[in-house]
Structures are given as structure tokens and as C-alpha cells.
């Protein structure tokens, strides 16, 4: 028998999932579900939208309104869902490749519009489903099947990208600091505007093996040792920051929300007609 949380929010007949042993995606998926459970949001008021990739399989396992869409286009579909029914809590589950390469434009424009969506990016630094090609978040110098001598591409910092494009809530969590990840997802859902959460996941099968990062446990230990809370990060010297990354809530700001603006336009035009 699975736990109460899993029984309540997962399509248990589809479990066990297909993710590899030690893959962090299951941990992030549970954190999303726990965040929804903590907020007591009825299942029918939630819509999970995902793209294509290992991470995006999550939509199939979850028992909410779910939409498994095309590669990179989860945010475009989610924008449509949200505009059609602004009362829904629309949560987008996407991967690093899905959101920043194929769907890179959708990401920056959803952030620019500040539409009330919560985007959780499962960042495992590689394209897992298709066999380990490098993605825009593969660290420079790291190996992948398409970069056998190490990638020469500079990697994206997705949180900086989302913040610069206009997201009103930006946070980063890891599959080690799960309680914190749960908390930032919760805050992201409550934020009225575009919320962007980067969840650093582990891919022991491709990214780990290609780069000799060891087992799933070794990769989790790496996240434990190198993820620094943002408050502590700001006090660190540039030298100490090398090899480490900030986690927790990184940015938040106030901006007009898109669906509200859209409704205001509809209302004003309706008045003109009468």
C-alpha cells in the first residue's frame, strides 16, 4: 500500500514510475504534490501542464486536471488554459531542455507577461529521455553524448534568466533540500503572477555516468554540500562562491498580472458596447 499522500494525489495504477533508480524527478513531483496538499487546494482547481522529456512524464502520474503537451510548448498551452479559466491554479512541469532550449521563447514571454502560472523546472543538466545530449544548463566543460570532449557552451542560469525576463517570484531548490523546495513551490503557487522555481534534480544514468559523478547518493551529497541558502550566499566572498550555488527564494517583485489586465480590457470594451 502506498502512503496517504500518494493514494490521494497520484494515479497509483500507473506506479511504479519509469524514472531510473535514483532519479530526482520523483522527489520533485512529491514536493509539488505536498505543496498543493499543504495549501488545501481542491484537486479540481489544479491543472498540471507538462511538455516532453523525463520530467514531463510527471503529468501522467498525477491525479489532477492534467495536460501532457508538445516539446517546449507547455507554457504556451498553460497560457491558454489560464486565460480560459483564470480561477485554476495552473502548474507547469518542465525540464531544463524543454523550458530553456525548445521552449526558451515561451519561457521568456510568459515571464514578460507576468501571467499567473507556477513553473517548476526539473533541472537535471541533460536530456535524459533521448539519451544524454547536452542541454543549455549542462555546465561548461561537462560531458554528454553530444559533447564527448566536454561542452564548450556557457550554461544558462535559469533563475537569472526568468528574473531578467520579468518573473515576479523566482526560487531555486534541490532534491536534497526538499522541505525548502516544498516551501518555495507553495509560495510560488500563492504568488499572483509568473512564478519560476528551478528544482535541481539528479540524473545518475546519463549526466552522472558521463561525468563520473558517482551514484545517486553521491549526487545528492554534492547538492547537500554546494547548495547555499541565499541569505548566507550574499555574505560570501567571490572566492568562496566558486563551485557553489544559491538556493531558496532569490527574487520577488510586484508587477501587473496578465489575466487581470485581460479581464479589465474585456470589461471596458463590454461597457463601450452597452
Amino acid at each position, binding site marked *: 500500500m502506498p*502512503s496517504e499522500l500518494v493514494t490521494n494525489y497520484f494515479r497509483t495504477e500507473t506506479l511504479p514510475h519509469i*524514472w531510473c533508480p535514483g532519479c530526482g524527478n*520523483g522527489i520533485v513531483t512529491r514536493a509539488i504534490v505536498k505543496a498543493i496538499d499543504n495549501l488545501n487546494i481542491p484537486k479540481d482547481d489544479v491543472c498540471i501542464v507538462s511538455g516532453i522529456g523525463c520530467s514531463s512524464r510527471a503529468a501522467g502520474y498525477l491525479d489532477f486536471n492534467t495536460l501532457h503537451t508538445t516539446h517546449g510548448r507547455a507554457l504556451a498551452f498553460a497560457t491558454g488554459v489560464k486565460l480560459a479559466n483564470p480561477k485554476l491554479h495552473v502548474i507547469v512541469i518542465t525540464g531544463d531542455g524543454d523550458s530553456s532550449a525548445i521552449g526558451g521563447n515561451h519561457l521568456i514571454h510568459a515571464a514578460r507577461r507576468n501571467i499567473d502560472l507556477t513553473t517548476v523546472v526539473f533541472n537535471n543538466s541533460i536530456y535524459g529521455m533521448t539519451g544524454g545530449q547536452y542541454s543549455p544548463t549542462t555546465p561548461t566543460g561537462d560531458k554528454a553524448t553530444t559533447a564527448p570532449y566536454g561542452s564548450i557552451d556557457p550554461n544558462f542560469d535559469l533563475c537569472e534568466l526568468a528574473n531578467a525576463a520579468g518573473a515576479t517570484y523566482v526560487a531555486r531548490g534541490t532534491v536534497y533540500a526538499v*522541505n525548502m523546495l516544498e516551501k518555495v513551490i507553495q509560495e510560488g503557487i500563492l504568488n499572483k503572477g509568473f512564478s519560476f522555481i528551478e528544482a535541481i534534480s539528479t540524473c545518475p544514468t546519463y549526466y552522472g555516468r558521463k561525468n563520473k559523478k558517482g551514484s545517486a547518493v553521491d549526487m*545528492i551529497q554534492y547538492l547537500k554540500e554546494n547548495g547555499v541558502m541565499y541569505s548566507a550566499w550574499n555574505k560570501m566572498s567571490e572566492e568562496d562562491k566558486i563551485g557553489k550555488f544559491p538556493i531558496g527564494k532569490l527574487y520577488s517583485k510586484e508587477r501587473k498580472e496578465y489575466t487581470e489586465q485581460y479581464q479589465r480590457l474585456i470589461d471596458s470594451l463590454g461597457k463601450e458596447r452597452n
Partner: protein
Amino acid sequence: MPVKEKQSLKTNTNWCKGCGICVFVCPKQVLAVEDEKVVIKNVDKCIKCGQCEYHCPDYAIYLEEEK
């Protein structure tokens, strides 16, 4: 918060893939992996912190409220 005494540690070994993450995150060395499946070794030492449940990618271990 639920009363911790009334919780018990459960496993669902059919879903366990033996990654060992629960063994790593457990602060009291309660768990082990044997034949690629999780085993509860020292249930008496368990402080019911729930870290194994939070970190299990396969939902194969959890704390259950006793009824």
C-alpha cells in the same frame, strides 16, 4: 503536527529501486539496502523525522498514522 508515537514506518518494496537515498538521508542509520530493496534494520532507533519519505523518489517508504 501529528503525534509521532502514533506513526509507524512502512515500506512498499514492490516500488523500491534500491537507489539508497533513504539510507543516506536517515540521521539514525535505521535503513539498509539488501538485494536492491530497502530494509528497516533498526526500527527502535527511528525518530520518525520523515526524511526517508521526503527523499524517496519511488514513494516506497513512508510514515503511516496508526489508527
